[in-house]
């Protein structure tokens, strides 16, 4: 695990609890979430149709796509409700000195 793969997203207070922010890096887009037990990250685009999940609804451990209500588990990326059937990719997250980092492979 090389250190340079950890990318700084922002400060821990940039996300409200049970909410998310969008984070773009190079040509990819990610969503970074603050849940009650910590920070998580997934791909930023729904696997059903190419729509940004940044406008989706975070409830408990789930993100719901704003376009067609496909639901994913934020921690595992599992597609929980149709029309989404393909899982969402997830990424490791760490917090260091009140800053959030995600590990992009």
């Amino acid at each position, binding site marked *: 695990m090389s250190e340079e793969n950890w990318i700084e997203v922002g400060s821990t207070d940039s996300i409200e609890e*049970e909410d998310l922010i969008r984070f773009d890096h190079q040509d990819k887009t990610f969503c970074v979430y603050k849940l009650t037990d910590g920070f998580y990250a997934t791909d930023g685009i729904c696997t059903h*149709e190419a*729509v*940004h999940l*940044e*406008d*989706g*609804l975070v409830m408990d451990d789930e993100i*719901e*796509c*704003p*376009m*067609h*209500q496909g639901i994913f588990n934020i921690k595992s990326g599992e597609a929980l409700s*149709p*029309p989404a059937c393909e899982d969402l990719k997830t990424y490791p997250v760490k917090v260091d000195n009140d800053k959030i980092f995600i590990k992009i492979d």
Partner: protein
Amino acid sequence: MKNNIIILGGGQAGIYAAREIRQNDSKSNIKILGEENLLPYERPPLSKDFLLDKKKAEDLYFHSSDVLKNENIEFENISINKVDFENKKLFANNDNVYSYDSLLISTGSENKKLTLDNNLKNDIYYLRNLEEAKKIKEIVSNKNKITIIGGGFIGLEIASSLSQLQKKVIVIEIGNQLMGRVIPKQIADLVQNTHIEHGNEIILNKQIEKITKKNDDYEILLNDNSLIETDFIIAGIGSTPTVKLFENTNLKLDNGIVTNQFCETSIKDVYAAGDVSNFYHPFYERNMRLESYQHAQNHGICAGKNIAGVKTEYTSIPWMWSDQFNLNLQLTGICDEYDEIIERGNDINNGVIYFFLKNNKIRGACGVGVIGKVGRDIRITSKLTEKDTIVDKQILSDQNLKLNKLIQK
């Protein structure tokens, strides 16, 4: 106990019911009888990504044949032409007879057809199934000026797709607004503006008097004596529940098959779900018939539970969407019973939502915006509706205030 369960109708409600039954009942035989020689597939992309070649036919199946095989769900392509509810038998057009202990009817709905001279019947196209979508896709590639009769969801989605394929599109609607059956005029007008901005012509308040074929083209005469020349005609003028098979039986029909909140019909061991069912909704305390993706899925699941003996009320708050150009339109609940309307936002780029309230509680809402801009708020609205929450109207009307503040945990 091992039962024979037959699901008549191979659409979305049918497949979701089948899988739900299997979740709760590992022993019974489950057989889906479908009129199309295709496993159940998603219909929403037919008017959009399929026409635009962004999705292929094979991308549309809900589940692969392996899933059905693993769950021991049989699918048979067959047309049933007689039902004997008393002896619990279905008769097929090839003389096969199917006996059931429990029957789910999920035959869906079918397109209303224009009343026309017989010699024009094959000239007007309709879109409901994959076969029809394939035909339209093939033929429009050689057409330039296309007329769509009916300004409802299907007509407008096709209009949006054909415009994106650089076709000249004319939409003729008999009513004084687009999507008039369920969408508030304020929202319909925003959608109409987007069509016009993309070059589509929208004609409201006009009836068709006559269609005349001129070589390979057509002339459409409207009731104001104006004439439209066109080289292809698609009609989307609504649908009716597919109930012909049951018309001379004891099954209670009234705008579809009448069911209670448990998907039970007037005949014991016979259930109905999806578009074909006029069901009792306990939250709204009335019967309704819905034609939507979410309803077909959830109503099928609810029927599946009840057939498997898990008594479950159907309480889903209705929800549907339509995608046209870069817009996503969403509707939740019922927007025709209200004493107050509240508007949230006024710019389609940030999303515009109209809430319909009765006694300070939301009964329904309709919103439209650039893709992604109304979904979260509409979803929260469904939850607020379901929980019968008395809402803070200040928060509803101010787009700078987040709606999730209204959800009581």
